[in-house]
């Protein structure tokens, strides 16, 4: 009897597992046929990939581009960008700037509504921006509001009284902003995701409104229909949106698949209409065949030197290392993502206040793959240092596919062109950042990108003593030019200072730019009307399927 029981139990265990498996599958069955439907019903549904669950969709708490891309469909700022990147009316139907460039007055569109039907008021903007600056909010990109008068002091807690902030609600539809100093790019910045408004009433009555789809209230072209955490966000047109006529999509669905090969597989089998996360293995092939497209990304990848190092302190050694690299070869054979060889620092597409910065400053500040000069400089540099040959240098980079290959290519180029040995060392993302920040490195690969459309955004980090100056760069002439540009009210003059500052930085080879980044994406031919910008988040407002 006992023995029979034990056999019975064994079988029961196996059966129970089988049955439970079957029952779970059976439960979900009725919902199906979605994939087939999607194929036949081309009814203005666009499926895109958010890669992961957004860390937040509350604009102020967003810290990454992808979540910013999502929020940009849900919310609308004071202004927005048209398809050519020019500023056009958003929630503000018109605006004016005082003659000294300090005070902006925004007149809000009375038809601008929240998805719950409320009107978008000046109060909402005041509330959202004040909240973004409040220290307790801990807004990761809150520094984008430091251009507002006393914004920085309010954020640090130096000023406690919000009335001292340069913001004023004149009436329900009029919002006035006073800046710290004239800021040519401020208007465009009001379209950036950190500055998007939230509904004051909703936020005050239900503090966790932004964590679930049901309670989510937004004022942009789309609203959230369903948000399954970690799985998908389904957006549908906001029927209260003031320009709802230009919205053609019936559904904008964001799936969350973080694996590049799977992403590409979904694109191939029409389960994704747009893909921005291509596997390295097919990227160059797809760019070559014209299937994948590239767009500039206002990002530059460069070689960091630790200027505290006694060898790298020498400008000739830095130049020799920087000039002996074949950047064209790097972008053609190594990175293969349609990148552009960087022969200067500020990436193309970034503004200067008086037109695009690169057009003012010229494309190339040095020659690519200038081995002869590099060799000469190396000999001179070694002489200055009193060395016969260069000791082995440590070369640090963050573990990822591209940088693994890039660092090996650079190692080889230095060895071939200059006979220099460098030792490669790779570190996990945050460990790498921390190591560089603490200055325990000699050479490192680094990338930097702009948050707002102005070259000044990238220049501050190489000023002596700046907290981001992990390279310990100290060039008095550069510091002087950057601070002059900072203080200059005249835009032409300011741009000149910035152009000169970049020249000084590159002449000293304080860093060695490698390439300008690009966005690479696949988009089905029948998908039209998606607007991509150098800095601003992507815009699906006018997208449609043909």
């Amino acid at each position, binding site marked *: 009897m*006992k023995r029979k029981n*034990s*056999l019975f*139990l064994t079988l029961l*265990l*196996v059966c129970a*597992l*089988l049955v*439970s*498996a079957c029952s*779970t599958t059976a439960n*979900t*069955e009725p*919902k*199906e046929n*979605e*994939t087939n439907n999607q194929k036949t019903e081309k009814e203005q549904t666009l499926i895109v990939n958010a890669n992961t*669950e957004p*860390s*937040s969709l*509350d604009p102020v*708490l967003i*810290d990454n581009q992808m979540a910013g891309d999502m929020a940009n469909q849900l919310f609308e700022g004071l202004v927005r960008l048209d398809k050519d990147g020019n500023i056009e009316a958003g929630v503000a139907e018109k605006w004016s700037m005082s003659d000294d460039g300090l005070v902006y007055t925004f007149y809000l569109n009375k038809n601008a509504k929240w998805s719950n039907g409320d009107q978008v008021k000046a109060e909402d903007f005041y509330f959202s921006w004040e909240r973004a600056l409040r*220290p*307790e909010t*801990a*807004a*990761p*990109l*809150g*520094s984008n509001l*430091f251009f507002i008068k006393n914004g920085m002091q309010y*954020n*640090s807690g130096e000023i406690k009284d919000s009335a001292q902030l340069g913001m004023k609600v004149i009436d329900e539809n009029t919002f006035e902003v006073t800046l710290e100093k004239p800021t040519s790019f401020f208007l465009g910045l009001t379209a950036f995701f950190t500055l998007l408004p939230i509904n004051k009433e909703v936020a005050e009555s239900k503090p*966790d409104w932004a*964590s679930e789809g049901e309670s989510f209230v937004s004022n942009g072209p789309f609203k959230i229909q369903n948000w399954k*955490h*970690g799985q*998908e966000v389904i957006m549908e047109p906001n029927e209260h949106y003031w320009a709802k006529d230009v919205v053609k999509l019936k559904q904008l669905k964001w*799936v*969350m*698949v*973080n*694996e590049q*090969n*799977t992403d590409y*597989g979904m694109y*191939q*089998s029409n*389960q994704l209409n747009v893909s921005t996360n291509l596997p390295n293995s097919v990227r160059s092939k797809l760019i070559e065949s014209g299937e994948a497209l590239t767009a500039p990304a206002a990002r530059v990848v460069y070689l960091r030197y630790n200027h505290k190092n006694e060898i790298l302190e020498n400008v000739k050694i830095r130049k020799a290392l920087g000039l002996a690299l074949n950047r064209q070869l790097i972008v053609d054979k190594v990175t293969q993502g349609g990148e552009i060889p960087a022969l200067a620092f500020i990436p193309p597409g970034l503004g200067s206040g008086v037109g695009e910065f690169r057009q003012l400053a010229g494309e190339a500040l040095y020659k690519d793959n200038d081995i002869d000069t590099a060799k000469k400089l190396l000999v001179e540099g070694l002489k200055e240092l009193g060395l016969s040959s260069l000791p082995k240098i440590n070369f640090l980079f963050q573990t990822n596919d591209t940088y693994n290959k890039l660092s090996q290519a650079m190692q080889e180029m230095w060895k071939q062109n200059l006979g220099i040995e460098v030792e490669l060392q790779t570190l996990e*993302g*945050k*460990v790498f*950042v921390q190591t560089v920040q603490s200055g325990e490195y000699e050479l490192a690969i680094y*990338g*930097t990108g702009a*948050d707002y459309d102005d070259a000044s955004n990238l220049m*501050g*980090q190489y000023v002596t003593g700046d*907290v981001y100056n992990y390279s310990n760069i100290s060039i008095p002439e550069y510091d002087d030019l950057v601070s002059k540009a900072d203080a200059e009210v005249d835009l032409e003059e300011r741009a000149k200072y910035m152009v000169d500052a970049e020249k000084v930085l590159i002449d000293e080879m304080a860093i060695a730019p490698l390439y300008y980044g690009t966005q690479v994406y696949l988009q089905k031919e029948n998908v039209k009307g998606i607007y991509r910008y150098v800095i601003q988040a992507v815009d699906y407002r006018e997208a449609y399927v043909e």
Partner: protein
Amino acid sequence: MLQFMFRRLIGAVITLFFIITLTFVLMSAIPGDPFTSDARVPEQVLDNLRDHYGLNDPIMVQYFKYLKGALFLDFGPSIKWDNQTVNELIATGFPVSAILGIQALAIAIFFGILLGIIAAFNHNKSFDYMAMIIAILGLSVPSFIFATILINFFAIKLQWFPVATWGTWQHSILPSIALAVAPMAYIARLTRSSILEVLSMDYIQTALAKGVTGYRFIIVHVLRNALIPVVTILGPITATILTGSFVIEQIFGIPGLGKYFVEGISDRDYPLILGTSFFYSAILVFFVILVDIAYGVIDPRIKLIKGRD
């Protein structure tokens, strides 16, 4: 039995305490914190963020906070996923991982035992070799390669199943198979060798001599004894499936817990790391106890408490 359970429960609590402590120590030892990034975030903003999540507290204060959290099963808000608490993440992620895991386990057990039986009863014949080649392939080919092959063939070429994401039963088929392959191979090999061993026993020879044959012979005389080792490895196999599910979840874009478990570490999301480690450890400890109990039930030779009976 009750005494056994009680002892194991005390043991489990001590184990979990050590796991939490060790996790906390290791976690604090990794360089970087949740807000380390190469973005240009001003120091005061970082300080606000650290304050907000209590990371500026002395390390012992943080430790006791987490202990308290574990005691009341409340791990607080996730740092990376702003609007969600760790409990919510576990509550939404685990059922998905569990469905995937149970399906994979069912496939692994069913086909593993089947393959093992086929192989053992065709010892040194072509069926045996075929089954064992499948088993060796299953063990040696990593699950992510297997998953990619499944996607390419069944989802992209034949379009029988969706490539990825989650929601319907079709979505769960390919990932379950991919996840099941390695444990299935393991079970198959174990079943085979264990049956072969049982077949050489005297009582089997006796039964055969008495003329017992057919399914009754296989099930009653052979399998019951041969499956004991298989049951004992179910605990570790559940562990393999749970921890192995991260890769599969990643490839198939499945909103399971494995993703949070692993990404929590690269994000340095301290509450999430502690919450998921605690949760997984608790499950594993539970399974090990369960297997111990099942072991005693199946095999009467094993006593749960020494010196009794």
